């Protein structure tokens, strides 16, 4: 069955520190992959998406993600976290029209 796994329910980082949020996928083939962010009482907003090609994808607000076929992973990174990055981050895969989401990672930022 198709699935996306985010093994970390919660991650806490200090403001200015680097960040990595983990995502693993399980699909028959290589899906299109996405990272969405959800701020409190808001809908989901797209951070970035993966196209087959360059394994490193640049997104908004300094986020990037690296795709690895050998590891079935699509980890999200940011070099320097800002307090405004405090939110829930969802990894998602899509082979046709239906997004399959991970369970989300809550990012807490220590001032």
């Amino acid at each position, binding site marked *: 069955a198709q699935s996306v796994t985010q093994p970390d329910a919660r991650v806490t980082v200090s403001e200015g520190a680097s960040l990595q949020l983990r995502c693993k996928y399980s699909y028959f083939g290589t899906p299109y992959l996405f990272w969405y962010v959800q701020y409190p009482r808001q*809908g*989901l907003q*797209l951070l970035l*998406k993966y*196209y087959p090609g360059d394994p490193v994808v640049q997104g908004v607000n300094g986020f990037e993600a690296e795709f690895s076929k050998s590891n079935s992973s699509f980890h999200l990174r940011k070099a320097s976290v800002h307090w405004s990055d405090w939110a829930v981050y969802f990894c998602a895969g899509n*082979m046709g*029209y239906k*997004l399959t989401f991970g369970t989300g990672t809550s990012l807490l930022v220590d001032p």
Partner: protein
Amino acid sequence: NAGVIQTPRHKVTGKGQEATLWCEPISGHSAVFWYRQTIVQGLEFLTYFRNQAPIDDSGMPKERFSAQMPNQSHSTLKIQSTQPQDSAVYLCASSLVTRGDTEVFFGKGTRLTVV
């Protein structure tokens, strides 16, 4: 572009009552989706319309849930005889076309509370 608009933002219903949730997709988008978000189950796909036609309702609980798209500017999700387990945030989304790499735009959701 106001994005995907969902109304109401919050709805409280008594157990056994009916709830209707409204969605206005982004103008010109041919694909409309409904998802449900709960703490326990996370984000779950419910149903999908393409050019107003129902294509996939595999995520819909069969007996009490129904979705319609009577015209290109709005979709409704109706829950009959609501139960406490229906309490969730219901997210409507739309995309320009139906393709795996297409960005899907989400509304802010309707928080349904069944008491």
